[in-house]
Each structure stands twice: as C-alpha cells, then as structure tokens.
C-alpha cells in the first residue's frame, strides 16, 4: 500500500487528461487537486473522480452474455475463459484473411497506446471514439499547415498579449476539454487587456464572460470566417509580409479570386450575422497583435473540412501561426520507438468506411480515421466482424444510435450475429455493455500505468506525464492495456517481447534518459518548459510538401473543395417547414461525452454540484408562440426519431434553435438512470442509412438536425 500523502498522477475524467495530485489516507483516496507543478487546476469532473472510484456500480469480474444482445443478461466468468474466447475468435478471423475486420473503439492516450500497437500488429483498425469532424479538421490542418493535427490544440491562452483577440467559435472552453487551467488563463488574458469574442448560437458560460457574443446561426462559421477573410483582403488588411514569405506561390491569388464574391454582405445571409459585425471583427483581427481561434470541440461542426480550411486560411492571412496568442504548432516529444514497429493495415485498401453508398466520393479524401458512426454500416456490409470497445459508449454516443443497436443485433441466415464478437471494457455497466458478449472489468485511472506525451489539447511543447496506480483495483479488474498486451503475446508475439506495460514505457522513455521509475521519482512529469514560437523559420518551413502554407487544395478540385465552401450543412435544408428548429447538442463542464464516469457519478448529477437532467432549451419568444411554458413536458421530433422531455425557457439561445445537453439517456446505472435524461442521438439521423454527406465533408449533424416541438 502506498504511503499517506499527495501522489502525482493524471486525471481521466475527460480527454484533457490534466495533471493532478491525489491525497491518499490509509489506502483510500480522499482529495484531488490540480498539480501545481503542471498547471495546478482540476475541474469539477476531476474533483468528482473519487465518486467514480468507490461507486457501488464498479464492475469487479468478467461477465459473459447469457441472454440476447441488448438484454443485458450476464454470468460471471474467469479471465482465462474470457481471454480464450477473444483469442480464438481473433485467430480464426486472421486465418480467414479478415484481420482488418477487427476494430477497437477507444480514445488513444498516445499514438503508441498499447491498444493501438496491438491493432497495427494484428491488422485491425482503430476508431478513436471521437467524432468524424475531428478527422475533417485534422485533415484541414495537415493540408494547409502540415505537421501534427493541431486542431486539437487551442491557442496557449497564457501567451495572449494585451489587445490580442481570443475567438471561441462554437467552442466551450469553460465547459472543459482543453485543460482545467484554460478558463483562468482566458480570464487572465482579458485582465491584461485581451478581448474575448464568442460565436455561438447558445449564450454559454464563455459568452457570459465575453466582450462580444455573436449569436451566429449553427454551422454558419465557415461563411463567417470567409466573410472576414474577404474583408481583410479587399481592404488590404492582410499580413503581406507573412503571406509573401510563407504562403505557396500562386495560392494567395487563387484565394483572392475565389473570395471576391464572399463579401460580408453575402456571407451574412448564410451565417445570419450582420455584415457590419463581420467587418468589425475582421478589421479588429487584422490590427490586433494576435488572434487565437479555438474551435475544437464545439457545436459548429457542420462541415468540418470546409470550416477547418477557412479557419487555417484566416490564420494565414492574419499571420497568426505559431506566434504568441495565435495558433500553436506543438513539438512532438522524441520517444524511443519500440522495435519492431508494427505497420497497420492500409485504410484506403481495407478500411470499411468506404463501403457505403458514397464509397466513390470518399476516395477523394484523405481522412485518417474511420468515422466512428459508420460502425453500423460496416456491420451490415459484413466489413466489421469483431468490435472491442473501451472507454467509450457507442450505444449512446452514436448519431442515430438505434441504427448501431440494430446493427450489432443483426443476424445472418444461420441466425448468427453478423458482428461475431462484441467486447466491452467497462468501469461500470453502460448502455454499450448491454449489447456486449463479454464485459471486462477495467481499471480506473487511479489504478493503472499510462504514459502520456502527445501534443494534443492544452499541451504545446515537449513533455511527458505519468499516470500511476494510486490505489489497488477492486476485485479482478485488469486494465485494457494489460489485456491487449496479453492478446499481443498470444497472437503477434514478435511485437510483444517486452514484459508488460511498464517495460514498454521504459523503452519509450529511454530516449529522454528516463524510465518509469525515474519519472515517478521526479514527480511524474518531465518537460523542458518551452513551447517556442515561429519554429517554421528555423525548421525551413512548414510540414507541407512545399514547405509553405497551402491555401489551395488542388487534390480536391474534382469535388469542388479546393477552396472552402460557405454553405450550411445539407441537413440544414431538409424539411424546413415540418421541422422549424435546429437542434444543438451542447456540452457542459459536468459531463464528458456519454460515459458512465460522469453520467453515473452522483456528484456530477447532483443538482448542487453537477447537472441532473437535460431539459430542452427553448427561447422564450419561440416557446410563447407554441404556448409552451417553463417546465412543460414536450415532444421533440426529427425526421428519424422522437423524444419526450421537459422544456426549459431561456433567453440564452437563438429563437430558431433548441438545445439539448449531449450524453444523457442511459438505461443502466444507479445514478445515470435518475431524472428525465434523454438522448440527443435518438433525434440525430444515423450516417449509414439516413445521411450520406457527412463522411465526405467530415461533418456531424449535431448542429444541423431539424426538429419540431409540440406540447
């Protein structure tokens, strides 16, 4: 047992993974803090991690399905039996030449996450348990700027100078995910004289602190930024020196020609922001010492590829790349590769995301991940045979999750499930586990080793964080990484010659002159403490093929996306008369995704310290026209689903929108099932059967689904 006192480790109540201290007393976790040697903050979810750790609902032994998928009936089994079932199935899949029909659905904690290593070695695919809009924006950043997928990287708010501009475009930085220190850094920058501008159809906590809230139409962000770019160029306000030196020759002229008619007046009609406001912000941005745009996990993800493109062009014309207060281009930490390094299957050749009705269109793009929500389609097509899930909840997270649930329950002519094996690692039973053949008891983030060194979220320079076991796991819990390593030793042993996860991390740390033990003794973190600026100057340019910024994407000429298209997401135009409102799926700081770690957490569902249920937000004036009063029970319908929920009348949302917090609606869990929580994904159309545009624009219809509300 560890000694009493404060132990440094890393939170995983959400994907920001903040450095924390855990106070241990007689073997029990008593308190959590942000680690002052990192950025010193933890959020409410982090503080409530203790409730997760000791919840009665924790799973402690492997379970095997006894009823039908979806019934949630299980019997306990041994780890040996569970591992043998998985090993046998994966062996037979590989023998059939169908290793690529394995997908593991998880958030990789690094690009060398042991789970990912197993997939690459075995020949399966990863789903990142993140939306496809990620993929679209990552691709946009790679295409324009090269290098790491930096849309994950918000501006380093602590670097914003006086008079700098901070733009949250559909981004809830006060709602979590960057780092718990980010809200304080934003307020500090404001106190120094920087300006906070929030573009959002909902008046968020960020908007409450903003100098300027712009209640833009959902998915209008591409048009808004194009309007700003047009104004900046037309009025010679662009950063000429930066463009001359760093933009690929010819691209700026192509942009000038393209943007000519994307005037603030024209774009105003699309995004519903007055042209004068577009011009005003554009002028301010052009004159400001820095502009940082955060638009990662927001609600404006209508067409992420187009938006990512407009976003990066905007940064280029204002010269706000890798400068203090602008868009950082983070460094990669030089870890030692663990030889032999496995090479994963060819996504273009074998990936199942290209099996749908837009297969041909998709081949035009260079998305680097399978869209998570295409699992249902892949199962129907016979392209997904084994699905292993961890730290994700697709049965509730997927757009049109009924389609996912139906697909995993689909049987062939022999009455066998088309998805031959569904395994879910769980801290506690979830919606997804109800459908799993095997439910495996995972270790919490307080009980396991993990090495974190990736430059995503609020990490900018080189650095390593160590997640270490603080307490022992209950019962027979084993971390999914331990199990993937064991599966690796059984199925692809040449790639798994190291003893265990700690030895794997030791090898990777050797390049930094570190080991797990040394890192642990140092306090669990290592960093040279620099992020650096304008590194492209010293590096001889950007990571693009030309070394310059590519504003024009010639490879997408054929699909009319060589330049960003200003239009709203196609779903916006469907059945406008029948479904007059746009549904916005939004987030709060109290919950991360649809996971049980926050939704089944009593402190995060408690009305005083969290968010209990998710009534639909309706603007008061719109509600009055429908004779809906605060607290009324209403029916909300889309073209693919219907829910009943309470109405909450507010002034904090556009009158043509309604808002629903994402992630509710669990039918499992002592706490998660309390209150009137409803799932937004019942209303949002699925991608496989209903929508055929999302994967080709890198989009999500979380901001573009049309709904009707009736009393």
């Amino acid at each position, binding site marked *: 047992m560890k000694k009493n006192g404060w132990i440094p480790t890393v939170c995983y109540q959400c994907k920001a993974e903040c450095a924390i201290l855990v106070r241990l007393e007689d073997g029990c976790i008593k308190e959590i803090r942000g680690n002052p040697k990192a950025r010193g903050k933890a959020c409410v979810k982090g*503080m409530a991690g203790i409730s997760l750790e000791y919840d009665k609902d924790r799973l402690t032994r492997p379970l095997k399905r006894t009823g039908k998928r979806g019934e949630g009936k299980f019997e306990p089994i041994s780890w040996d039996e569970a591992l043998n079932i998985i090993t046998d199935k994966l062996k037979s899949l590989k023998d059939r030449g169908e290793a690529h029909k394995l997908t593991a659905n998880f958030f990789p904690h690094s690009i060398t996450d042991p789970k990912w290593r197993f997939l690459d070695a075995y020949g399966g695919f990863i789903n990142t348990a993140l939306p496809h809009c990620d993929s679209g924006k990552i691709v946009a950043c790679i295409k324009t700027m090269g290098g790491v997928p930096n849309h994950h990287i918000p501006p380093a708010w602590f670097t914003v100078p006086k008079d700098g501009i901070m733009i949250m475009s559909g981004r809830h930085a006060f709602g979590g995910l960057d780092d718990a220190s980010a*809200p304080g850094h934003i307020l500090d920058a404001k106190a120094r004289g920087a300006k906070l501008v929030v573009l959002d159809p909902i008046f968020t906590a960020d908007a409450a602190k903003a100098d300027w809230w712009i209640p833009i139409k959902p998915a209008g962000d591409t048009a808004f930024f194009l309007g700003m770019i047009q104004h900046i160029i037309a009025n010679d306000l662009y950063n000429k020196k930066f463009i001359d030196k760093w933009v690929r020759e010819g691209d700026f002229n192509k942009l000038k020609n393209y943007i000519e008619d994307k005037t603030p007046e024209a774009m105003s009609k699309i995004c519903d922001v007055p042209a004068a406001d577009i011009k005003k912000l554009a002028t301010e941005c052009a004159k400001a010492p820095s502009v940082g745009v955060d638009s990662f996990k927001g609600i404006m993800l209508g067409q992420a590829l187009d938006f990512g493109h407009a976003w990066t062009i905007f940064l280029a014309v204002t010269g706000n790349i890798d400068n203090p207060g602008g868009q950082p281009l983070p460094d990669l930490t030089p870890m030692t590769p663990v030889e032999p390094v496995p090479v994963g299957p060819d996504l273009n050749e074998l990936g199942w995301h290209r099996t749908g009705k837009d297969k041909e269109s998709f081949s035009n793009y260079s998305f680097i991940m399978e869209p998570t929500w295409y699992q249902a389609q892949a199962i129907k097509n016979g392209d997904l045979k084994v699905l292993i899930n961890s730290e994700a909840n697709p049965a509730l997270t997927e757009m049109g999750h009924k389609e996912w649930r139906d697909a995993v329950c689909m049987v062939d002519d022999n009455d066998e499930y088309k998805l031959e094996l569904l395994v879910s690692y769980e801290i506690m039973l979830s919606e997804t586990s109800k459908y799993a053949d095997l439910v495996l008891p995972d270790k919490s983030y307080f009980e396991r080793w993990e090495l974190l060194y990736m430059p995503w979220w609020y990490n900018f320079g080189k650095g390593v964080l160590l997640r270490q076991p603080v307490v022992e796991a209950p019962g027979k819990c084993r971390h999914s990484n331990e199990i993937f390593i064991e599966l690796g030793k059984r199925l692809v042993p040449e790639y798994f010659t190291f003893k265990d996860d700690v030895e794997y991390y030791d090898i990777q740390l050797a390049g930094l002159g570190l080991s797990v033990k040394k890192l642990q003794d140092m306090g669990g973190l290592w960093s040279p403490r620099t992020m650096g600026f304008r590194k492209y100057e010293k590096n001889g340019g950007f990571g693009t093929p030309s070394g310059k910024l590519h504003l024009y994407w010639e490879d997408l000429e054929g699909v009319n996306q060589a330049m960003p298209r200003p239009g709203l997401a196609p779903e916006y135009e469907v059945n406008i008369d029948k479904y007059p409102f746009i549904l916005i799926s939004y987030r709060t700081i109290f919950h991360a995704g649809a996971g049980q770690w926050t939704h089944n957490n009593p402190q995060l569902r408690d009305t005083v310290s969290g968010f209990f249920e998710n009534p639909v937000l309706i603007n008061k004036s719109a509600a009055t026209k429908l004779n809906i009063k605060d607290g009324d029970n209403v029916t909300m319908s889309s073209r693919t689903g219907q829910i009943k929920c309470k109405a909450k009348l507010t002034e904090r949302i556009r009158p043509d929108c309604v808002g629903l917090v994402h992630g509710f609606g669990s039918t499992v869990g002592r706490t998660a099932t309390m209150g009137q929580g409803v799932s937004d994904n019942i209303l949002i159309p699925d991608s496989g059967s209903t929508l055929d545009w999302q994967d080709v624009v890198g989009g999500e219809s979380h901001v573009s689904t049309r709904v009707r509300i009736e009393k």
Partner: protein
Amino acid sequence: MKQLSLMIDLSRCIGCKTCIVACRNFHGLVDYEAALPNEIPFYLRVESKREGVYPEISVNSWVMPCQHCKNAPCIKACKADAITKDPDTGIVRINKEKCAGEKDCIEACPYSVIQFNKQENYAHKCDLCFDLIHAGGIPVCVETCMTDAISFGEKEVLRQRAQDEGKDILKKMSAQSILYVQNPTAS
C-alpha cells in the same frame, strides 16, 4: 474587529462548481459508495443572475457559502448554545457535541447554508476550513477555484485590495462577512 473573509469575484466565477465538490471531499461529506444525487450535503452552492432579453443578455454567477454573519441569527436561534462566533476570526462555528439536533438554526439562517446530518443528529456548515487556516492553509474553495475567483484573508484587507484593483464591491450581497466584487460595468 477581527473578521476573516472570502472575496468572491463575479467577473471570474464561471459557475463551474469545482469548489463545491472539492469542499465536500475535504470535509468528508460524501459517502462515496452509497451517495445518490440531490441527497449529498454541501457547504457552498452556486447562484446566478440572468438578465436581459435575447440577444442583449448577461449571466453572473457566484458562490454562496455561510456568510459568517455579523449578528448571526443561527446563534440566537440555537437553544443549546452550540453556535458561536469565534472572536479571533469571526468564523461562525457549530459545536457538534453541543448540538441537540433541533434544527432551529436551519430555520433561522437567511442564507439556507446549514446542513443536517440525520444519522448522527447534528447541524453542520462551512467553517472557513477552521483547522486548515489555523495551520497556515487557505480554505479549500479558495485553493481549488478553477479561475481564482475566490480570495481569502481579513475582510478589511480584502476590501482594501478590491478598491485598489478597481473592483466594485457589491454592497447588498456583501451585507455580512463575505465580500462580493466585480469589474466595473461599462456605463
């Protein structure tokens, strides 16, 4: 007068409730295995004021702990003399041993901040982390506030700092021992 205080800056409070959970953890208010939502005691809560009509709206948030009243009604209401105002700190404290569980203080409290432990029959509330501050620490809500919206110190010094920093003191909200401040609003 000796009075310890918290200064709560509405310009920095984002209503994230981090302090509430951190406070509960520190004071051992949560039975982690059995707790259910809406039944867990709390020593401070978030309140907010929403004003205006779309799109001209504002939302301000703040935390409401025990106000450690100047003439605390809870002290007067308690027949068991279990509640005192500490002369060295101005902190209003409930003596658990003396508390008879009559709940008169809960009735009397104008800020609804006193909690009641049914199992052990006593009232309890924020004591500004009495033991912690005597050992040189700062209250947990101050230490853990995600945006550094809460400051701790002697009331007079905090008031002086607010004035020096050009913050407006919200007099009506600051009627007792806790100070509420914000940046001057543009006129």
